[in-house]
């Protein structure tokens, strides 16, 4: 590329006035749509994933399925009759030797936090009624490194001393209780204990707000009759999307059932993938529209400037120079359009954050256009502009100079 080619390309664009404005506007609008839409979808997906993984561990180690949970085969035909059979009712599977498991999980380089938990079904007594709950025995120090329940506390603190409990606000409303009030939990074998409410949280999910009741790990183990055992070991990893790899690795090392948040939320991930695919599809179609717009305006420019192109050829400009003058114009339209488009897209995203809010006036999900999106949009738009200019550039370079000069 020679400086004269850039000079001529920029001057041709500058001289194009309304035509140039038109293609710049088209490219700007296209990039703005792509930046806004991509930011919106990324924001939505990140918010969804954060909401889900905020309440779930990234990796969970559970007791191995015992014989009761194996498939059942017909004695006559040998065909599988049931995919799996459920364990004996009333019995909670547990990990007896959980300390070595915690140690093994904690040693994985990807794991940043690990905690044992004792979860099981129970009820809270309200007058004559029994309200179903999930008793969640946790170690508040390590557990809060994995599930950010502390950030979701509306009142009180994550403290379990002297038979303390932390419950969801919907359960508290249902029971008409508040901090300091005492409530009685009952488990299947009728072991009942009275706890004092030390904290009330809003997990952002109704099921959790209505049923989760945190107690100390010791109380959980005791109420659920687990002895020293736990129902699972939970962990959080450095990169959320590596969780399935970590789970696979730990499956081998711990010889327990290890699953990742991705295993548990396969439907959601499938939906997110579909959403991402449709975003890409929209970006592709917008790019095609922008490319067609740029190409058509450049074709008109070639026709309008055929005399000048002929004269440039007569002056000694090779075909390559003519071709590059138009390619530079296409790429410039794409690049400049993408810069303005990124700014416009960011403006739209910020506007969305400002104007689209829920009933409480809170941002539904924050959209933060990232520099990566800008860089990708710039590359995509510049490439689109360049490709769009190929046909007009070839057409310009192939003009017969004598014919172009005579018939213009």
């Amino acid at each position, binding site marked *: 590329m020679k400086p*004269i080619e850039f000079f001529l390309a920029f*001057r041709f664009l500058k*001289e194009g006035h309304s035509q140039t404005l038109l293609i710049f506007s088209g490219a700007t609008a296209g990039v703005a749509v792509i930046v806004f839409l991509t930011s919106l979808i990324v924001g939505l997906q990140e918010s969804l994933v954060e909401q889900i993984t905020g309440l779930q561990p990234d990796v969970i180690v559970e007791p191995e399925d015992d014989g009761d949970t194996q498939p059942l085969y017909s004695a006559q035909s040998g065909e599988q009759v049931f995919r799996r059979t459920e364990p004996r009712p009333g019995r909670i599977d547990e990990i007896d030797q959980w300390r070595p498991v915690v140690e093994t999980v904690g040693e994985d380089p990807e794991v940043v936090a690990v905690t044992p938990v004792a979860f099981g079904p129970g009820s809270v007594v309200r007058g004559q009624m029994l309200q179903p709950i999930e008793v969640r025995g946790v170690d508040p120090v390590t557990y809060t490194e994995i599930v950010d329940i502390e950030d979701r506390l509306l009142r009180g603190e994550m403290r379990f001393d002297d038979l303390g409990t932390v419950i969801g606000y919907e359960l508290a409303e249902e029971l008409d209780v508040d901090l300091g009030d005492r409530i009685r939990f009952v488990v299947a074998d009728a072991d009942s204990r009275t706890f004092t409410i030390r904290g009330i949280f809003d997990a952002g999910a109704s099921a959790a707000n209505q049923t989760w009741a945190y107690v100390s790990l010791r109380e959980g183990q005791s109420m659920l009759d687990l002895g020293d055992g736990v129902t699972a070991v939970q962990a959080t990893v450095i990169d959320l999307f590596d969780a399935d790899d970590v789970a696979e690795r730990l499956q081998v090392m711990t010889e327990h059932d290890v699953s990742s948040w991705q295993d548990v939320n396969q439907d959601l991930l499938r939906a997110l993938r579909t959403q991402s695919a449709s975003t890409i599809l929209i970006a592709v179609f917008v790019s095609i529209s922008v490319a067609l717009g740029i190409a058509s305006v450049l074709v008109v420019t070639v026709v309008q400037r055929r005399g000048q192109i002929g*004269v440039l050829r*007569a002056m*000694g400009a090779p075909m390559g120079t003519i071709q590059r003058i138009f390619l530079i114009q296409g790429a410039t339209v794409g690049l400049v359009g993408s810069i303005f488009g990124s700014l416009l897209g960011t403006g739209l995203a910020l506007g969305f954050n400002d104007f689209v809010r829920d009933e409480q006036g809170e941002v539904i999900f924050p959209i933060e256009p990232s520099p990566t999106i800008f860089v990708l949009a710039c590359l995509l738009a510049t490439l689109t502009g360049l490709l769009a200019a190929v046909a007009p550039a070839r057409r310009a370079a192939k003009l017969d100079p*004598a014919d172009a000069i*005579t018939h213009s």
Partner: protein
Amino acid sequence: MTNPIIELDEIRRNYGEVVVTHVLKGINLRIEHGEFTSLVGPSGSGKSTMLNIMGLLDRPTSGRVIINGCATGDLDDHAITRLRGRTLGFVFQFHHLLTGFSALENVMMPAAVDRGTFTSSMRERAERLLSDVELLEHEEKNVRHLSGGQQQRVAIARALTNEPDLVLADEPTGNLDTKTADRVMDLMRRINKETGTAFLIVTHEEARAERCERFIRLVDGQIVEDRAGADADS
């Protein structure tokens, strides 16, 4: 003995495949360095076709175009373009300046295209040329805002930028009023005398053509007259 700038050897140019039109029918011509030549002929006689072939803007159906001793028939597009840019200058009836560019930029353009960029020496030469055509005070003006005569003078200055051996001028005064046309003709003649640049001027105005050193008449694709101009000044 030096080579002629251009030598046309049995040049023929046909158009069409089913119905063949013979536009040039065996042209033989030599243009020497420093000549000031006019080419006249009725409309459709093949003047522009001959000029395009001489300017390497078109290729003959048969025959040879030799420029400064170099046969151009086997040269590729790139070599032809370079040879054209460095040896020949063009002036067209409709000036074909780059509108939106200043007079100075237009004059510098052939050199910038050749070297890939603008340089200060190019600017100096372009200013000298604009001064020669008495347009230095308009150097920064957009050529769109110049009169027809001024535009044609800018086109002449542009044709001289690469110090060509020959300027091919196709009806350079065809679009100008008589007074301006005379001025442009005088200008080309003066440059020819001062710099030794050869000119081949296509015109349909016989009186003006007779003022050139050499007078060539083309009729029906053939040179029918090649003599000294009747009113040529010495």
